[in-house]
């Protein structure tokens, strides 16, 4: 469609080419994303592609900017009025796409809906669970009462898309998917939805914030990487996300194409077996002749450090990731407020690694199998092969096994592996990886649910515990940083790199790259001339 419009614009005459082309182009845009959107119900499935589309249609009390800093959304301000009570002041004069006004009633309704979406495979209930009672002070003020002080309340609210009580009282997930109930306060409204294929958006002219740049947006899903790039090069789509690293070099040279990129929040790291004690066998570790070792070398911090510094992170970033990542020594990148100052990516030093192994009692090394998925993270299978090469060079003979995520993730969750590659897409608060990956696995507190290596450190747990009820923000941040520092010094996991998020577009477009990886229609706009 755009092609036709462009031709029309060219035919309009030389004097106005620039102007009319600009005007015509600004009418519509076709985007293609890699991951299929599974539902338009914003509370059905906690999944990035769904969240990105939900952000286009709906708003949250607290929105986030491209760097994941909190911004006033449907709430103008928020504060803890008592240790256990948060108060949110709501934005006046906001209307849903169907004209209904937005009030505190809608917020209360939304939070009540979160745990009650039928058949949800991954619900948003965790964000309303700390709230024990809600109190509507006036139509534009709402208070949440919690059992204990809950400093992460505003962060939680960045995940909850607000619905309209009147419209969505009895709305089912199917109603959302059909478009009938996909009605929010966001910058675009849904025109049509073909599941797994495309969504058509139209500008919400009554949006409370910045007016959306395009009248219409076609949001297509093209899962195949090569096909997506080909579609961009052929001009069938004007914008793609998740640009394959193998195409980066070529796209950078192509003067029809522009890229937008930013360091993301997803760390790729190696989880190690902490479950088997020092005198037990780890499942995939043997001596050099293939016999059981009788001990788990990974319980020795010197071995863990040796394995970490044996890895040439820069080589992986340059050669395997083609520059689309930064070497990492911790979960969050520089510039994020819970980044641990002074903890740098471990320097590549194979000689020191061999010395550490000898000190730990393994002068001849040992054998290990490194597992990983082959369809989950950017270049996952390639990365584990590269690590395998590097470990083998310091005497730790490594075999590599990559398998589909479906079979991998279950086994990783049962701590079946000695070493495995996995990723973590964090929110910008260090408490997120701490609580899910590094804290001791405890069901009652909901800690360590993704702690697939079963790392456990009482000092780290204690610091995390304190931070979760500390309302004084600078103090809380300090606690979170200290806990992460302990994990880094103890080599709880081996961080490899943090991915760079990259989008590709035709030259006439511009885009605000987000570190949370979301591909939202409102972030795409015509390039300034």
């Amino acid at each position, binding site marked *: 469609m755009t092609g036709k419009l462009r031709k029309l614009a060219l035919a309009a005459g030389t004097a106005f080419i620039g102007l009319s082309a600009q005007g015509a182009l600004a009418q519509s845009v076709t985007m293609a994303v890699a991951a299929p959107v599974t539902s338009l119900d914003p509370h059905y499935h906690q999944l990035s592609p769904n969240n990105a589309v939900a952000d286009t249609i709906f708003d949250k009390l607290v929105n986030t900017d491209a760097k994941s800093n909190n911004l006033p959304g449907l709430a103008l301000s928020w504060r803890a009025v008592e240790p256990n009570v948060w108060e949110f002041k709501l934005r006046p004069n906001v209307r849903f796409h169907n004209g209904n006004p937005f009030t505190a009633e809608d917020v209360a309704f939304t939070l009540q809906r979160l745990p009650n979406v039928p058949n949800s495979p991954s619900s948003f209930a965790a964000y309303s669970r700390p709230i024990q009672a809600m109190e509507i002070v006036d139509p534009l003020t709402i208070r949440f009462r919690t059992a204990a002080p809950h400093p992460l309340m505003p962060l939680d609210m960045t995940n909850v898309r607000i619905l309209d009580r009147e419209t969505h009282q009895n709305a089912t*997930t199917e109603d959302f998917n059909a478009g009938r109930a996909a009605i929010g306060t966001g910058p675009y409204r849904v025109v049509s939805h073909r599941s*797994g*294929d495309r969504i058509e958006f139209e500008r919400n002219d009554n949006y409370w914030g910045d007016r959306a740049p395009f009248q219409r947006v076609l949001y297509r899903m093209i899962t195949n990487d090569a096909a997506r790039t080909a579609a961009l090069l052929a001009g*069938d789509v004007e914008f793609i996300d998740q640009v394959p690293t193998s195409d980066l070099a070529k796209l950078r040279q192509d003067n029809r194409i522009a890229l937008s990129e930013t360091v993301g929040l997803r760390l790729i790291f190696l989880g190690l077996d902490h479950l088997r004690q020092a005198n037990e066998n780890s499942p995939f570790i043997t001596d050099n002749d293939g016999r059981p070792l009788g001990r788990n070398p990974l319980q020795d911090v010197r071995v863990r450090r040796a394995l970490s510094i044996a890895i040439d992170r820069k080589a992986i970033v340059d050669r395997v990731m083609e520059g689309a990542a930064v070497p990492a020594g911790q979960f969050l990148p520089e510039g994020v407020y819970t980044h641990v100052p002074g903890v740098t990516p471990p320097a590549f030093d194979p000689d020191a690694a061999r010395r550490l192994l000898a000190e730990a009692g393994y002068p001849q090394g040992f054998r290990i199998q490194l597992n990983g998925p082959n369809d989950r993270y950017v270049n996952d299978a390639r990365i584990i092969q590269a690590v395998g090469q590097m470990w083998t060079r310091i005497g730790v003979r490594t075999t590599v096994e990559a398998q589909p995520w479906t079979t991998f993730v279950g086994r990783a969750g049962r701590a079946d592996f000695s070493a495995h590659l996995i990723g973590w*897409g964090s929110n910008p608060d260090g408490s997120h990886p701490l609580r*899910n990956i590094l804290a001791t696995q405890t069901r009652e507190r909901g800690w360590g649910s993704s702690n697939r290596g079963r790392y456990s450190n009482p000092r780290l747990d204690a610091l995390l515990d304190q931070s979760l009820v500390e309302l004084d923000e600078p103090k809380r941040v300090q606690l979170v940083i200290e806990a992460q520092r302990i994990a880094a010094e103890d080599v709880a996991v081996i961080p490899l790199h943090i991915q760079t998020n990259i989008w590709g577009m035709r030259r006439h477009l511009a885009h605000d790259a987000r570190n949370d990886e979301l591909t939202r229609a409102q972030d795409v706009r015509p390039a300034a001339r």
Partner: protein
Amino acid sequence: MTVYLVRRVLQALLVVLAMSLIVFIGVSAIGDPVEILISPDADQIERERAVQALGLDLPLWQQYAVFLTKALQGDLGRSFVYNEPALKLILQRMPATMELAFGATIFALIIGLPLGLYAGLRPDSRLSRIIMAGSILGFSLPTFWVGLMLIMVFAVYLGWLPSTGRGETGTLLGLQWSFLTWDGLRHLAMPALNLSLFKISLVIRLTRAGVRETMLMDYVKFARAKGLSPARVTFVHVFKNILIPVVTVVGLELGSTIAFSVVTESVFAWPGMGKLIIDSINVLDRPVIVAYLMMIVLIFIAINLIVDLTYSMLDPRVRLESKGT
């Protein structure tokens, strides 16, 4: 005849039942869908809730019993991913796959038949050799690789055809069809050709073999001896005779074409059933996998049955009861 039909249908039901059981057990053995679908930062309580919500907390035989009970009422379960009836999801995507499969079949016939006829009539000419060599290429080239080559050449370098996806659709019988619009046809061309490569080769070889065998038949020799024009012999006597087996095989192949569209659909981002099944396998969306495979088996059985029935009508020598070889 009725007895025969009843027996066939009963057999078909048995096959479907056996298949659903195998797939049910198989998919459950691969992994836990909750592990895959759940947000990584969900805690254990939330995980347990999800397991319960999807009915996966029951023992497997009970899950199967629940599935069977509902299946008898026409409900094949709800997708774990989309929270919509699995059958509805598949039916929504069926027109896309069907038009791809039919497109491929049409390509196969309009390209394969003339080439095969020529190769059969002039088996020793240079062109025939080239055709036959080409048909071997068609058999040998892996579909996925050809697909990408097609995109590279026709979409990226030449820019003649759109690279991927389904174009604009028109409505017929309440369904969305892309062959009704020019844009839709342009989108359909490449994937249909990709999917038809194997079938083109098949048709060429069947036609050639048929022609060569028929030319040796006494009645053809007789027709030629009688002085009928070569064109008449070819098109009336030979062509008519080989058309039946060719059409039969192509018809039988329709089922496997639908199944094989899995590869083509993932390369061309074609939003059909094949892409749905690959996506579903990736997230272990068991209701969709089971429903899809049951559907495919039913299609296979239906096609076989139709072919057998047509056969018996066309050729009285084939008696349905003695379905031997």
